[in-house]
């Protein structure tokens, strides 16, 4: 099983594989997700009502409240967290969010992850490397 290889920078070290859930729009924490269910709840968001628990969440950036990291930490404590994160552009919110979610995470990839990865693709994150197996 080989696929497209993307290389970037490690945000949270580690290796994981899983199914990609791709958001093309930035994600809000507070007011944007329900951490008890691991679901995006922002009206008008392209992933409104979609569950990210157990998926590798691929998104361009974090937006909104400084509660972002706390809400994603709560997904870990509630068993509804994503298993990995692929982040287009890092910020204080998403960096801390990935750290306290404690899942392998990567950013600054050599291609726009939200363009080359599609929801349903199988991803293998190995520190700074992401292998994309198209489905």
């Amino acid at each position: 099983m080989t696929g497209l290889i993307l290389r970037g920078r490690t945000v949270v070290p580690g290796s994981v594989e899983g199914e990609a859930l791709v958001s093309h729009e930035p994600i809000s924490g507070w007011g944007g997700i329900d951490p008890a269910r691991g679901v995006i709840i922002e009206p008008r968001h392209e992933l409104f009502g979609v569950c990210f628990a157990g998926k590798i969440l691929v998104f361009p950036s974090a937006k909104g409240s400084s509660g972002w990291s706390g809400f994603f930490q709560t997904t870990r404590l509630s068993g509804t967290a994503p298993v990995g994160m692929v982040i287009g552009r890092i910020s204080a919110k998403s960096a801390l969010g990935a750290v306290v979610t404690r899942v392998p995470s990567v950013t600054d990839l050599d291609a726009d992850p939200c363009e080359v990865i599609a929801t349903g693709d199988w991803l293998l994150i190995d520190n700074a490397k992401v292998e994309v197996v198209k489905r």
Partner: protein
Amino acid sequence: MFLTEDEKRMRDGAEGDAVAAAMDLLIRYGFALDAERLCDIRNVAGTMTQPSPVKARLVAEGGWDKAFAVINLDSDLDLTIPSMRVPTCQLQHGFGPDSAGIVPYPAENVALQEDAESFYGRHGVNILATCTPYQVGNLPLRGEHCAWMESSAVIYANSVLGARTNCEGIASTGAASLTGKVPCWGNHLDANRHGTHLIDVRGLTVESFQDWGMLGYFAGGVAGEDRPVIIGDVARPDLTELKHFGAAAATSGGVELYHIPGITPEAPTVEAAFNGATSVPEAVVYGPAERRAMYETLNEIGSSDDVDFVLLGCPHASVDQIRRTAELLDGRRLSAGTELWIMAPRSLKVVADRSGYTAVIERAGGRVLADSCPAMSRAAPRGTRVFATDSAKQAHYLPAILGIEAWFGTLDECVDAAVTGRWNGELA
């Protein structure tokens, strides 16, 4: 990431397990940001006392030491939390006991929060209980490095005060409070404080509180997570107008720093805002059509004209905003089916009480409430279906959080809606 000898000592436990856990979080966070080093801070604005179901469970399991370890330090260790190493304040949180009978808010949350205030007060946390610490005595100096949460406070501190903070989170502010350190990244660095987008106000004058909010909402849409610079036909703003502008820009986008040449401290000129004339980008125009579009976006959730709830004070109101509300309500009476709340920092509510403004508002049937807000605490008057507000931020968030309709207008229109029970707002 480079660590000083002192930081290595903290990491290795010389100051105790809790400080070591705090340093471990800062090292993981600094790595995630690719920060070169930490910087010294002695001003933290975070959140520890806000009730939540997870926090209630952790407190039941292991007391507040456990809750702080897990939530505020992201640590699984059994820690005893020492006093805050640097000045630290609590931002807005849940409602207090004086909200009983007014705000539908769980009594167990009130009790949990009172218990938290007692614990954290003993550990040196100033319970300011407001999203606007800069209104109640926490005014960092220009160039001062801080670790603040609350997007509307972060943008005010960076832009209006010229202080330096990223939009920190619960764990990074917790770790900063025990170490006096935060990653030296982003807004802490000179290179990241210049403008990226130019917005030119033409064909109208931005002067009113409402107009500053709409311009902020536009600026956030244009700049996203970057740094807008505002030029053109804007009147000199005051604290309340920039409070509204910044909160709106941090809501529609992720703006943490803006400049208004001639007004905000790091931008004496447009060229200075962009670090040189050659860096000034082409302007995006904000004119009557853009203003109309912002107004319609902020009002697109409203359909019923029957207003049951008027919400003022987001971010928390200044004394002058409370006074102005009292003047508009003096001698009037709210419609039978409508409630009016104005949210304020508790210490400013004391000033409003003493000045007689609260009594005027209460005689009309309105309320001045402290510590929290409907969005933070997910609480509005029972049966609310349609609310009106003068805040672009609340008009944006509250419909999603509470599933209600929103009207956005001026303070005068909001007070009229509270008195008549009908929305009659329109863009002047």
